[in-house]
């Protein structure tokens, strides 16, 4: 088992107001079965031993399901291996590699410190309409509420979004369309989401615009960077649903 020696170019910034800069660190003797975050833990332990400030980064479950970890690795959110940073293993890198580590960048994601950014803007989009108001009860009996298999699959695939924000960070325009469309689609596809479909679409899109995200230019960087494989089909669906919702609002189908 080979251990890796790496050069890290890490974005350091004390707080939102401070001037950020790239600093270079040596990551020595990193086991290749370590995850990317564990590699940073090792580097941080060394920094603490030397009496320096450790590198601040977001993390939580470390098993790829919470969406808390971020990091733009060599210019690509989560490193572009279709997994979250916590599931990215050092065996993906070679001994002697130089790795650039930066925060998820977007104006809508204000930087808090080093590699940690505030992704509240995504929560605000959910709060605007990414929910079902009615009481849906406990899990229904199987086949009690028929849903086409294809529809159920599409809804489940959309619901796989963990809301990490890699789509925004990878987008050349910092657009949140993939996130918003996935969150809208997984409810809009299912029976429980139907009564509030138009209201939801309008509220979420308008909140997304208000948060200062950019506009989608159909480059599909988001889909390529997404650790959960969310499809840009959801964006096409949101565009469609938005047209329908606007038409419904204009003629007063719902108030």
């Amino acid at each position, binding site marked *: 088992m080979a251990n890796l020696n790496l050069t890290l170019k890490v974005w350091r910034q004390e707080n939102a107001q401070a001037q950020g800069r790239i600093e270079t660190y040596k990551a020595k003797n990193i086991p290749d079965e370590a995850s990317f975050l564990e590699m940073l833990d090792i580097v941080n332990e060394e920094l603490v031993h030397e009496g320096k400030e450790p590198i601040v980064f977001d993390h939580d479950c470390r098993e790829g399901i919470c969406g808390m970890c971020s990091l733009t690795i060599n210019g*690509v959110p989560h490193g572009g291996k279709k997994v979250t940073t916590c599931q990215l293993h050092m065996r993906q890198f070679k001994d002697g590699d130089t790795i650039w580590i930066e925060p998820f960048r977007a104006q809508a994601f204000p930087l808090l410190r080093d590699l940690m950014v505030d992704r509240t803007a995504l929560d605000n989009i959910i709060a605007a309409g990414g929910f079902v108001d009615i009481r849906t009860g406990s899990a229904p009996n199987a086949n009690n509420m028929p849903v086409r298999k294809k529809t159920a699959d599409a809804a489940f695939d959309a619901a796989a979004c963990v809301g990490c924000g890699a789509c925004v960070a990878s987008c050349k325009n910092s657009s949140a369309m993939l996130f918003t469309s996935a969150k809208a689609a997984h409810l809009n596809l299912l029976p429980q989401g139907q009564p509030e479909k138009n209201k939801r679409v309008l509220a979420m899109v308008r909140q997304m615009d208000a948060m200062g995200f950019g506009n989608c230019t159909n480059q599909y960087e988001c889909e390529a960077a997404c650790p959960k494989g969310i499809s*840009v089909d959801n964006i096409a669906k949101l565009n469609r649903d938005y047209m329908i919702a606007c038409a419904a609002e204009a003629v007063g189908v719902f108030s």
Partner: protein
Amino acid sequence: MNDIITTACKFVTSSIGRKILVALTGACLLLFLVGHLAGNMTIFGGSTWINNYATGLHAMPAWMLMAIRLGLLAILLIHVVLTLVLKLENVNARTHYQKEGTLKATLASRTMVLTGVMIFCFLLFHLWQLTVNGDPHDCYNHIVAAFSNPWCSVFYIVAICCLFMHVRHGLQSVFQTLGLSTRKVRPLYNIVAILFGLVVCGAFISIPVCVMLGIIK
């Protein structure tokens, strides 16, 4: 009535609404390209063909010609102004990486504004050269004279290459923005966009090339 106006205002100021307007006007411009190309191809039939075509166009009632021109101008302006506003917002929404990475965004998609501005400048020159200073009765000789200047021909060819880049991303983008795309048909749209671009732009380029090669004289 109030609801309709309120919603319409919200629609044309929203990100998706403006993108839909850009897609629809873009689609109109693509259709115009096809019509324009079909007319241009009459040059290969000889001077009588294209001169008849040009005089035929001008034979329509003046108000109709003016209405078509104003309509096209309106479509073009909506397309250009909205894209520039959207682009400005996109630039402001982004903060740059020290180390930039790209996964699958095509060169064409990343240079849409650049190729668009090139096409706009070309369009101004093109209108000045062949519409303002043109004579429908002697269209053929005017075109041959224009393309006999190699600089003019090269400029046209470069501009049409920009048009290819623009159309290559634009056409498949129209389907996605209008919500007509799924993962099954998206690769097909991509191929259609490339083929459409190759055929249309190739045919446009064939005219200056043929003039320079002496095939059209």
